[in-house]
Each structure stands twice: as C-alpha cells, then as structure tokens.
C-alpha cells in the first residue's frame, strides 16, 4: 500500500477529489452498462410469459406477440 492511512488515500495530496470522482463516475457507468441488459431481459421475459399464457387461454390463436420494443 502506498498510502499511510485511509485519509491520505482519500485526499491523495489534493488530487483526491479528481481521482475519486473519475473512479466513481466510471463505476456508475459500468454498473449501468452491466445491469441494463438484465433489466431489459426481465421486462421482456415477463411480457413474453404473459403473452403466451393469454394466447394459450384463447386456444392457441397465437395472434399476438408482446410489442416488446426492445429498448
């Protein structure tokens, strides 16, 4: 470990705010990037499951598919 204390690591001789801000922003963007597909997949699966159920209930007319717009 280069720094002596947590405090020193946070301050980084005055450059702390910049460095940590850069890392935090990056972390936020990466997190959003990684979780976005999962969120979309969950929504899509719910819609599809609902649709299939409804169609099965109607006797397999299979006329409708979720208008999952995919964004």
């Amino acid at each position: 470990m280069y720094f002596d204390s947590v405090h020193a690591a946070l301050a980084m001789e005055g450059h702390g705010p910049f460095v940590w801000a850069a890392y935090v922003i990056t972390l936020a963007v990466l997190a959003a990037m990684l979780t976005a597909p999962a969120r979309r997949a969950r929504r899509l699966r719910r819609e599809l499951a609902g649709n299939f159920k409804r169609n099965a209930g109607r006797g397999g007319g299979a006329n409708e598919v979720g208008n999952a717009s995919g964004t």
Partner: protein
Amino acid sequence: MWSFFHKLGSPPWLYGIAGSILRWLLPLTLLALIAGASWGLLFTPPDFRQGNSYRIIYIHVPAAVVALAGYYVMALAGAVSLIWKMKMADVAMKACAPVGAALTFIALVTGAIWGKPTWGTWWVWDARITSMLILLFLYLGVIALYEAYDNKAAAAKACAVLSLVGTVNIPIIYKSVDWWYSLHQPASIKFTGGSTIDPSMLYPLMLMIASFYALFTCCLLLNMRVEILRREARTNWVRKLVGA
C-alpha cells in the same frame, strides 16, 4: 470451420454459448477490474510530475483504447450482416453501439477530470480529444438511427451501412484531426507518459486494459442475449425457455 459459421447463425446455439461463456468470464472480469483498480489506486507510486492525479490513467486509457476497438467490431459485424445476410451479425452490431458509447463517454469524462488538475482547464480542443468527441458522435448516431426505425430488421441494415461508411472515415478523421492540431497550434499541451512509462505503472495498466476488453465482451454478450430473445419471441425454443 463452415459448420461453426453456420452454428454462429443459429440463435438458440448462440444464446446458449453466450450464456456459458458469461458464466465464467463475467466473474473473472469483475475480479480483474477490482484487482487492477485497487492496484493502480493504492499500490503504485505517484507520477513524479503529475502526482497522484495520474491514477486516472488506469481507467482513462483502457476506456479510450477499447472504445476505439469497439467501433471496428461494430463495423465488422455490420459488414457480415450486409454481405452474408446473417441475422446474428445484426444482433452483434446492435449490441456494440451502447457499450462503445458508454466507454467513449468514460474516456471523455475521465479525461476532462484529469485535465483540470494537470492543464488547469476542463476542456481543450486537442486533436486526440476532438477525435474522441467525434467518435462519441458516431456511436450516438448509430444508436439514434436504430431507435428511429420502426422495422428493426431494416434498422439493423441501415446501421450496418452507417457503420461501414464510418470505417472508411475513421482513419480519415484521425489523420485530419491530428494534422489540424499540428498545423494550427504549436503543441503547448502534451500527453505525458507513453513509452517512457515505468513498469510499476505499466503492469496494472496492462491488467486494466485486458479487463476492459473482457468487460466489453461481457456487455456485448449480455446485450446480444436480450436482443436474441426479443427477435425470436415467436419461436418455440423461446417459449420453452420462458416457461410457458
């Protein structure tokens, strides 16, 4: 080889294989990212000229490098989609754009943050920076175009055309911007580091670059899996998968 190419065009196969790759690649990537970031943040000595602010390099450079490479991946997928009419290439291309845009954004923001302590200003019209900004525009253009089309099959083809045109132009853009910079202004601002970088800084940087590449792959596969599900919504295998 041919059969592999054929399999690559098969949505269920691709969906499955992407899943099994992700199962080990994703944890590994996250681990490498954490290791690299803490190594760079806490265990390396400061730069003798820039002090501690240089630690931004461990995210700035990997993000910039992978963002650039990402454009070529996208264009390659676009070419495959147009030439071999492979639907899964459409999917890959569509999945690239948001990831590339996010990485470009990271490179720009971390660069701007880094600029304040080192150059005393958030923004300069430097060649590198300007061309990175243009790259962001290119990515956003692809995303905007895809969203604007209703017929998503056509949207993917349109984006493929756009990204192919982009590949012809990216070298031109870089060349011209480099040239514009050297023409107009003596280089009062220079990137430090480069080849003179000390090994104690180089190793964590290499680790971070590698993990950003892996991260790009992970995000790509994740996005592709969702897109495949969406496109194949009417097929039996998706029905089975969703459990209906």
